[in-house]
């Protein structure tokens, strides 16, 4: 074992001229968070709509929403990244394709779109599981009170479901942070990519990866802590959706 440890590497200047290697890591973390958070907002909005549609009485709409979920669940994230980055601009009309390619942050925008759609399908599953887990009587009570279907969803089912599915949503949020590392394949220099860059420039492999790992763990613990507090605040006594064993990470 003749690995040469050098923990002071993080205070040395990085060759890209933007500061020290520590700055490289911080910039990586910021890109990770920016990608994950933007995509998360998109995933929540889309997932809420698709997940709700999955539970509607209209068979065809529900089938359409199911198809949406299956498409995004059954293709690896890496392949979806490539589809958005390499294939979508070519398949779209010429003008739109050129516009996407000339965006200043094309890989960031693509990564957000890709992660947003990918995660929205997983959020949708949680949303429809949450709605299905509510007692049937709630929907019936809404109808009996003279609420329309839309009103029943708006005032009865969705507010309940939103609070019930918070724990599984927490793990989806942790997943999107981790999945944002796949964006390095299309050139987003997020946390994993910056650790890799440090390794390539300085050959201090294990210091760089240890630092990145620690940052991921700290972010993870932070999210779990905050969500746990939120969960406690909004928990409805007596309603627990057992973490739907959907696999994945």
């Amino acid at each position: 074992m003749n690995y040469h440890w050098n923990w002071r590497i993080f205070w040395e200047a990085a060759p890209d001229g933007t500061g020290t290697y520590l700055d490289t890591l911080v910039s990586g973390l910021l890109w990770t968070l920016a990608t994950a958070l933007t995509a998360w907002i998109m995933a929540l909005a889309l997932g809420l709509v698709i997940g709700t549609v999955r539970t509607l009485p209209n068979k065809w709409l529900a089938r359409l929403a199911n198809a949406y979920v299956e498409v995004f669940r059954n293709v690896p994230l890496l392949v979806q990244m490539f589809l958005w980055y390499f294939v979508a601009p070519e398949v779209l009309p010429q003008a739109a394709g050129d516009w996407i390619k000339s965006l200043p942050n094309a890989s960031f925008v693509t990564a957000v779109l890709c992660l947003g759609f990918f995660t929205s399908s997983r959020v949708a599953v949680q949303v429809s599981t949450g709605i299905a887990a509510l007692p049937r009587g709630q929907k019936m009570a809404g109808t009996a009170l003279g609420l329309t279907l839309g009103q029943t969803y708006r005032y009865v089912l969705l507010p309940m479901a939103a609070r019930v599915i918070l724990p599984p949503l927490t793990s989806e949020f942790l997943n999107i942070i981790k999945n944002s590392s796949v964006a390095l394949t299309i050139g987003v220099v997020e946390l994993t990519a910056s650790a890799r860059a440090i390794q390539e420039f300085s050959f201090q492999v294990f210091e760089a990866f240890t630092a990145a790992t620690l940052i991921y763990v700290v972010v993870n613990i932070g999210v779990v802590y905050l969500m746990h507090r939120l969960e406690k605040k909004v928990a409805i006594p007596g309603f627990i959706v057992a973490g739907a064993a959907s696999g994945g990470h």
Partner: protein
Amino acid sequence: MLGNFDFDVIARSWGYLFQTGMLFTLKLTALAMVGGIGVGTMLALMRLSSNRAISLFATSYVNLVRAVPLVLVIFWFYFLVPYIAAWIIGSPTPVQVGAFSSALITFIMFEAAYYCEIMRSGIQSIPRGQVWAGRALGMNYWQTMAHVVLPQAFRNMIPVLLTQTIVLFQDVSLVYVLSIPDFVGAAGKVAQRDGRLVEMYSFVAVVYFVLCYGLSFLVHRLQRRVAIIR
């Protein structure tokens, strides 16, 4: 545009894509599943152990691995395995480990953390009375586990274990970051060589979709058949 979609490039590279790429992906998936379930079950037993040190070790390992993205874990093991191998055989310099073995070790150790959680809930779903009954019959810990608890836990969890394996099958595509020709890597090479990115990546997506959708459909049917009637 789709008008000049070149199907011929797929036909031309068919053999390479499936005999090299898909074979690598399938081999890695199968071996990592077997190894991952093995190591995962051991980790689950360790997590549930009454020995605090053992349980703490397994819990920390599982939580650590689950907090870190797979891409980073792939990089970790890619650089770490040569050093570990050198340490095991007492070599003064890092040992060259083939791409396949390196990837296999990575996926076994990574997926073990996820399989562990599945097996743990499987073991916990078995009533405690069965363990006591086993002990009362004079069986020791390992006999109770091997003959009473694990067979039932395993059977209960088969659908979830297989679903995780489909996820593993998709995850294997990430060895792309090490430029290993798995199915996606092989398609990527052809795509770059012939300048046919649209065709190759669309084809890869379709193949994955058909395989994963088909497999999860089968798992769903299996789920109804293996349920133990109580």
